């Protein structure tokens, strides 16, 4: 297709990028193909599964619903950018401690939505958690342990010392 090439400036995980993109390039493809940040996944390309969720200027956004050119000037955080060096983000730690993932494909999007949720309210009820991640589908976990993971992360972010999966399993 004869595409005009446009220049965008996007900050991703604190690094500034200046790139030439076609207008039809989706943000998720820009992250994956141009920047090789393959932690952000594509599950449907139509805005329903949430596997592509990233944080754009503080808000959780499904990056398949946005063109890269629309992110010109934006500051983006992806799953690769949430740990602080070797120290996992509390939400990452929660998912590990509480077995919040199985195949891991939904997980980066799920983590980004959970971070956005907890940054607004670090003490959500179970119902608020379930509502907060309703745009992210997981086929593996039945969400039980994802809810636990977010609860763990919330407690950690509130300065408590939460307990992981060893306290949760059946006999």
């Amino acid at each position, binding site marked *: 297709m004869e595409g005009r090439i446009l220049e965008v400036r996007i900050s991703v995980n604190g690094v500034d990028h200046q790139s030439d993109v076609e207008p039809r390039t989706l943000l998720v493809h820009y992250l994956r193909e141009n920047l090789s940040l393959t932690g952000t996944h594509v*599950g449907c390309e139509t805005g329903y599964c949430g596997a592509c969720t990233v944080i754009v200027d503080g808000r959780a956004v499904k990056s398949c619903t946005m063109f890269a050119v629309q992110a010109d000037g934006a500051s983006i955080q992806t799953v690769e950018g949430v740990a602080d060096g070797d120290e996992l983000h509390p939400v990452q730690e929660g998912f590990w401690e509480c*077995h919040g993932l199985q195949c891991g494909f939904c997980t980066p999007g799920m983590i980004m939505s959970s971070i956005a949720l907890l940054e607004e309210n670090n003490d959500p009820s179970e119902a608020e958690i*379930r509502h907060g991640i309703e745009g992210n589908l997981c086929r593996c976990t039945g969400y*039980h342990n994802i809810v636990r993971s977010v609860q763990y992360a919330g407690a950690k972010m509130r300065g408590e010392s939460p307990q992981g999966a060893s306290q949760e399993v059946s006999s």
Partner: protein
Amino acid sequence: MSTTSVMGGVVRRKEDPSLIQGKGTYVDDIKRHRELATAFVRSPFAAAAINSVDASAALALEGVHAVYTIDDVRHLGLNPAQVAVGTLRPFLADGVVHHVGEAVAMVVADDPYIAKDAADLVFVDYEPKDAVVDLKEAYADTVQVHDGISNTLLTWAGNAWWEGVIDLPDPSPGIQEAKERDDTVVVSLEMVNQRLIPTAIEPRAVLADWNSGYDSVELWSSSQIPHAVAGAIGMTFGIPSNKVRVVAPEVGGGFGLKLNVYPDEILCCYASRALGRPVRWTETRREASVASIQGRGWIGTSTITGTRDGKILGYELDAICDMGAYTHNFTVAIPLLGLFVAPGQYDIPTSYALHCVVTNKPTTDAYRGAGRPEAAYYLERIIDAFAREIGMDPADVRKANYWKPDQFPVTTQIGLTMDTGDYATNLDSLLERVGYEDLKAKRDAARAEGRLLGIGLSTYVEVCGFGPSALAGLGFSWAGYGLPTAFNGSGVVRVQPDGTCTVTIGTGPSGQGHETTWAQIVSDGLGIVMDNIEVQHGDSLDSPVGVGTFGSRSLAVDGTATYEATTRVKEKAAIIAGHLLEAAPEDVQFQDGGAHVAGSPDRSVAWAQIAESAYQPHTLPEGVEGGLESSVVFSPPNATWPFGSHLALVEVDPETGDVDLLEYWATDDCGNVINPMIVDGQVHGGIAQGVAQALFEEAIYDDVGNLLTSSLADYPLPAAENLPMFNLDRTVTPTDVNPLGVKGIGEAGTIGSAQTIVNAVVDAVSHLGVKHIDMPLRPKRVWQAIEDARK
């Protein structure tokens, strides 16, 4: 058997640090230099002749390298990885299409955008024909899907599949007699077990790279069965197995969807060889719906004949099972798996006729549970209806008909052997934990206030851990794939020269946590710490044989092979350590990263020293060879038979028909457990998929065969808000089929749950006169059923 604490304990998963940081490598994350992209031209018709395919406009587009049709690939023959019953799928449509989404042509271009643009420019001249969509119409055979071939490929009836192998009695005359008695009750329901779309969140993806110098090929594929894919590629292209490397890296959910050798895997290899460049294909979500496999799709009648005191004298199941347009890997074997467990946990005469019928729809094949959820649904729904009819508690009816623990091993009516079971203890344990009597009182009290609460119960037994070599001759094998025939398992355990350990297995995870569970087995045996054990999987050239991850078989089969390989490594290591410690091998114990002499913990040696010695033969005792590894192939003597009991509490809104799942309890029994956290996770996800079938999901077709639910907007997977927390527990009845005593847990949750929900909803509205509602129990259906019953 445990010398360290990891076996049977909760251990955080080894695979998670990578996955939670976005560092997991799925097929679509792998890049090859100069790779090309693919798009398929797919049929918009469910049934049509193809008059011509004109690719000239597509080929004229800049960046397009090739457009292939069946004329280019007919010489490859048929995909060998298909069960040889019915009409097999050609690599690309050959003059006729049989379902919407069938691939007609393959475009290869510089990038996926160009490939898609070019695919739109391929002009196919179709001549539409009548499509066969409805299952009963298909069975009537008035219009045939494949010209001149009956739509009914075969019927699994009576004891037909064993005929000539074992002489078995036919229970049907006895059941007919019981029906005619004055003191019996006959209860019958026609029910639909609807078609489902497996829907892994990761779409399938394929990347092929043919090396013309070596005439070898590497294929990365999101697959549950990389070895079988390699076998099929080798057979198709006439190259030996050691020139085909198929890698399934991280796999983003399988559920049976990725348990086929698909034409696109072969076609990408073909294109890569022809064009001399790597070739990639990534499935779109719509393609995942119409072009990969679907599951379930039965309509059937189940009938129970029994006495008023709850004794069941006969169970009959007569169903038409939708195979779709072509048979694939296991297609006609799915109803057979259902037949294996058709009588469930009960000592009851059973007669069945499962008609495998083709339609103009995508192929059905294994979807989580594969025949067993269908069988459990038909049986456990009708047992509930029977209990209601005779006014007995559904739990008591079940208990009155269970096999008793002292009857095991049980030989089933069709000659299979059920290993171990204690069904009544399992059910009682669930009922006690739930507070069954109180819950019933709560339901009745709510009902008196006009609220519609319902309790649903289901128990189940499944058959898994395939499989016994004895069944290889009956089709349970990869014989057609150029692989060893039986469904064996393999495990290679190698202690490295530095004392760390590498484990290579013939089955890989799509979320089940193999890396962690297998490391626990090896750590427990060798006393090597978990962090020093790496588990390799998913590479067809790494392990000597591999069958794959399906049918809840990995741990019972490949896990056992690994356990046995561990034992052999330990025996040799004891000789080496004994030599170093000047002790007898029998006195050597392995623990905490090394070995010590029993009773003298300070006479110890670290694994690094044992390993160092193992790889320097001159330091070894006389007659001991260098190296420290073992490779074991395990052939299970039998399948395993996990079981369990599930119970749900629901509330139905009488105004809207909306179903609220309030509470869910499950007590499963999968034998011994290695990592309880992982086992619970498998049950959670399994239940979620059963609840999804009961309440939400259905592949809906219009009457010309268009799939109306091909996007996630129309095919509603449950979201977090649609599900409750699950209350789980276990009983433990080890199997004697393998030394670990493990049975398998991947499918249990799904097999136990759909009918639990439907039983609960019907319980909530049965006093209004509702006897049955077909899944999915969306509000409109439930509301309509209440309205119809009121009239």
